[in-house]
Structure formats: C-alpha cells, structure tokens
C-alpha cells in the first residue's frame, strides 16, 4: 500500500496514524479473541477493526484504501462471514438444536484450554469479520459513493467518477 501520495490529510496525521494503526488493530484482535471470557466480543472487536480502516481512509485518502481493499472484497468478506455463522448454526441441528454448541460436546470444555468455550471464540471471530467489514462498507458507501442518473438508470458510483460526470454535464 502506497501511503506517501499527496491525497489525504497532513503529514502529522499520517505519521500518527502509521504509529497507532498497528496497535489499534492488535487491540481489535485482542478484544475478539478474548471475548468469550471477558467483557468484550466479536462485535466490539469488529468495530475496532473497522475503525482502523476508516482511520486509514481519513488519513491517507480514499484512493489508497480503495486500491488495496475495495468495496467488493469487503462485502464478499461480510456475506461469507454471515453465511459461515449460519452454517455453523445449522451444523448444531445435528447435535441437538439450531446454534447448539457442538464443539463443546466434541472437545469437552476445560479451563485454560484453547476451546474453553466451544464454538464461542469461533463465532466471535466470524462476527468480528462481519462487523468490521460491514462498518467499513457503510463508511465507504457514505463517503466515496454517490447515486447518479445516467440515461434514465440510477447507478452507485465512486466520487471521482461523480466529479468527472459533473464536469461533463
């Protein structure tokens, strides 16, 4: 990812973001992975992860972030995570009920083990991906996408195309 282009905010902001982005990202992962045994979860972890991308978009400009992580991968990640969540829920039907914690039945829970809460950490990771990409998508659509009417059909386009379109018309 090229972060030294002219778009985005001032050098101070860019440098500060460069310094903190890794830590915030790590904090998001910590909240997600530690969610099942502490007052955190995939939701709060996902929000923090999504905020890292938003912070980078604000600091370095929309083009930098869209080149490396655009809208299409974001919603494919989002929908895949939701689908995976549902598939795991459906797998539970075979073990006693929808969203049954079947991993706990296969690997009985014990303290200080990796799967001490069965499926819950996996659910947390999936939710974090879903929420993080969802939040990023909402931001991207609100920030860099516009609805325009071309030949009677309405289209959702990027702001740079929107600027070109306005200049032409």
């Amino acid at each position: 990812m090229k972060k030294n282009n002219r778009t985005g905010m001032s050098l101070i902001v860019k440098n500060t973001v460069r310094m903190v982005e890794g830590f915030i990202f790590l904090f998001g992962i910590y909240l997600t992975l530690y969610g099942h045994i502490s007052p955190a979860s995939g939701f709060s972890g996902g929000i923090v992860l999504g905020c890292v991308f938003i912070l980078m978009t604000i600091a370095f400009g929309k083009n930098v972030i869209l080149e490396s992580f655009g809208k299409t991968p974001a919603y494919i990640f989002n929908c895949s995570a939701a689908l995976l969540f549902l598939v795991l829920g459906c797998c539970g039907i075979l073990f006693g009920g929808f969203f049954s914690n079947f991993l706990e039945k296969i690997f009985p829970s014990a303290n200080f083990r990796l799967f001490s809460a069965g499926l819950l950490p996996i659910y947390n990771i999936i939710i974090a991906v879903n929420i993080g990409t969802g939040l990023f998508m909402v931001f991207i659509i609100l920030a860099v996408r516009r609805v325009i009417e071309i030949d009677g059909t309405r289209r959702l386009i990027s702001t740079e195309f929107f600027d070109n379109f306005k200049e032409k018309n």
Partner: protein
Amino acid sequence: MDNLSLFIAIPAAVAFLIPIVSHRLKWFPDVSSSVITFILFLFSLETLNHQCIYQMGGWPAPIGIIFVLDGFSSMMLIIVNLIGFMACLFSVDYMEKIYTSKLRYYSLLLLVITGMNGVILTGDLFNMFIFLEIALIASYALVGFGCGSKDLEASFKYLVINMIATYFIFLGIALLYGRFATLNMAHIVTSIQQYGTDSVVIFAFVLFFVGFGTKAAIVPFHAWVPDAYTAAPAPVSALLAGGIIKSLGIYVLMRLTYNIFGMSQVIANLFVYFGIASIIIGALMALGQWNFKRLLAYHSISHMGYIILGFGLGSPLGILGGVFHLFNHSLFKSLLFFNSGSVEYETGNLNLRKLGRLSEKMPVTSVSSLIAFFSTSGIPPFNGFWSKLIIIIAAIQAGRPFSALWVVIGSILTLAYFAKIQRYVFFGNGDEFDESQVKDIKEVPSLMRVSLIILAVLCTIGGLLAIGGVNGVFGPVVNALAGGTNQYIGEVFGK
C-alpha cells in the same frame, strides 16, 4: 415440520449467498429467491394443524430461546411465505425493467422474509425485537430502493416513525424484563399471574400498543404508510401490506394481548374505537386520492381497522372475523398492488387522471383487478364478503350494533373509491388521458401474469375457508387466541 429454525436459516442463507455468487451467475437471484420462497411456502403448509416447540441450541424455556408453533403462527407463516413467493415471482420482470441491482433487491427481500418468519415463530420478547429490526431495516432500504428524491424522503419518514415506535417497544421490553427478570413470553405470563397486573405491566402494554400500533398502521399511528407504499417498488408494497404490517404489527399485538397480557374490557374497547377510527378515516382519505398506490395505502389503513375491530370484539366469532379478514386482506391487497405494478410497468404512470382504457389492452390485469375490487368491497361470493359478514354478525352478537354499522359504511366507501379506480384506469379514462400513450401497450409478461392469476383465483375461492365457522379451517387460530394466557403457558411448558 418440527425443525422451525429452517424458516429463518434458509432465507437468511440465500440472502447472504446471493451477493457472493451473483456476479458470476446472473440468473441466480431470480431463480434462487423464487425457488426458496416456494419451498418455504410448502414448509409453511406442512405446519397446518401442527403444534410444537423448538428449543434453540437444545436449551429449554425459560433459559433458552424457543420457537412456538401453534394455529395462529402457522396461519401467519402461510400468509407471509405465500406473499413472499408471489412477490419474488412478480419481481423477475418488474425489477428488470423499472429498477436495477437485482442482487441487492432479492437479498433484502429475503432478509425481510427471514425477519417476519422469526417474529412469527419466536417465543422470546427480545428475540422478537431482533427479528423485528432485521425485517424493518431491510424494508427501509427496500422502500427507498428507487433512490429518487421522493423514494428517499418516504424511506426516511418510514425510518424515523418506525424507529420511534421501535423505541417504545424496546422500552416496554426493558420494563417487563426489569419487573420479572425474564424475556420468555410464557414465563412472563406465569410471572404476571403470580405477581398480578401492576402499573409497570400496564405501562408496558401501552408502550407495546403504540409501538406495534404504528407498525400495524392503525389510525392515528399511520403517517408513514401513504408515502412508504407509494415510493416502494410494487412487490415491496405488496409485501409491506400483505406481510410486514400484519406479522410485525397485528400478529404481535394480538399475541401480546390475548396470550401474554390477557384480554380485558378496556383493551377490547380500545381496539374497537381505534378500529372504527381506522375504517372511517382511512376510507375517507382514500376517496380523495388520485395516485393509484397512495389510494391503496389509505385503503390498507382502513382495512387494518376491520381486523383490529374483529379482534377487539373478543368473542371467538370476532376473532374468526379478524383472522379471516387478515388472511383475505393479504390476498386481495397484494393482488391490488401487483395490479398497480402492472399498470406502472406498462404505462410508467400511476396518476389516475392520466390513465385510461386499459381493460382491452391488459385483460388479465383488468379482470384480476376487478376480482380484487369485488373482494375488497365485500361483494358475494368473493372472500372479502364472508370475513366482513362474520365481523358484522360478531359485532351484533357482542352487543355493538354501531360498530357493525361503521363496518357497513366503511364497505360502501370502499366500493366508491374502488369504482373510481375501475372507472379511471380500466373502463373509462381520466381528464388528462392521452390516447396516443396507450397505443403500444400490451399485457404484462407471463411470470407477472401468473402471480396475478394465482392471487385472483385464491380471492375467488377463498370464501370456502369460512365453512365450518369457528370449528373450520381457522379453528386452531381461534383456539390459540381465545384460549388466552393459560392456553399459551400450556403450549410452552406442557402443563
């Protein structure tokens, strides 16, 4: 059909699958959503006369979340999935011509169906709130799907009013949770029976009445309806009128009233007065409309009044009238919105003044619209006649002859404004009608016609469902509600 979770899992899975695979398989959204909604409809038919409890994750009530299937939820499942299937079938050609981005549309439509199925089945108050939000948030996007300024304004109005209503519901749930420390609906009933009905419970009921009354579009909580119905694509309007306001509004309100809080004389009066107000105000407002869909929106408000009035009578016959009218209204209202969609599809116009003489050019649309008109106006032998007759008889039996009179007046008004539609759209023409505009018009494509014909046939033969009265087809629904709170506790806890 004991695995009730499939009613939520199947549409949700396809809703998430559509955006992933539709870039490569262009046919996938159309085919998958129609097939899936048809399968759901078959599943819902299988739930008829069936009663069961499904425990999420194997956790029993009141610890875990449960799904409850009884006569009432079974009937609502059939309505919602039938209208969902019809809407998907109608959308194949309609969305192709008028709107873009089918993948987003079908994805959202299936999420709405997921939410509605969840609300109908759940036996947990907070779980119901979550499903309510899933259906509503998806429907906000669907109402503003055209992205025009009026569509977005309507969507925003729909969002703001419904968010306020949702806040009332949320506060009601919080109060009940604070009072009884449980969210399981059957457990709340046992707690109310144990501790009695105090001011917290009464206040929670008032909050629920306002919240779900807004979603049920009864007067005076109806402000979002005309704009939202007019702006939404026709299949979405059909789903809003045929499914959303019934499952998220009427169904939950009646479930809470009859099975959780218990019916009382005060609540009965409240329903009857609000019902009469909805019938008359909705009908009078509809009389003055010149936009096809806006007229149908006010008609919807008016008919919600009949349903509320029927339920408010409290007797088994009144409940039967309310339930039967709810079922019939879903059919003819969806048909009418599909008719408006067909007219919009061919002419690009919904202004009654600018339309005219479509009966020769669009015979299927015209005949189906005529059937819906007879049905909704209460002309025998169509289904609307029987449900209105039952409500009138129930009102007289319950010692409320004036309520019966208002129902008759409402029916006459309905006849008047639907005669206006037939006169201006199909058999005559408006003041600003231009002959050259209808020259190239032909009947709508076959899939749109299929949904019109199926609903028209159901409206014609739907009256047969009234055979047997309170012991007939709708007997389990009447029993589920008339049995009151003890019936519901018995179903859930098996006592």
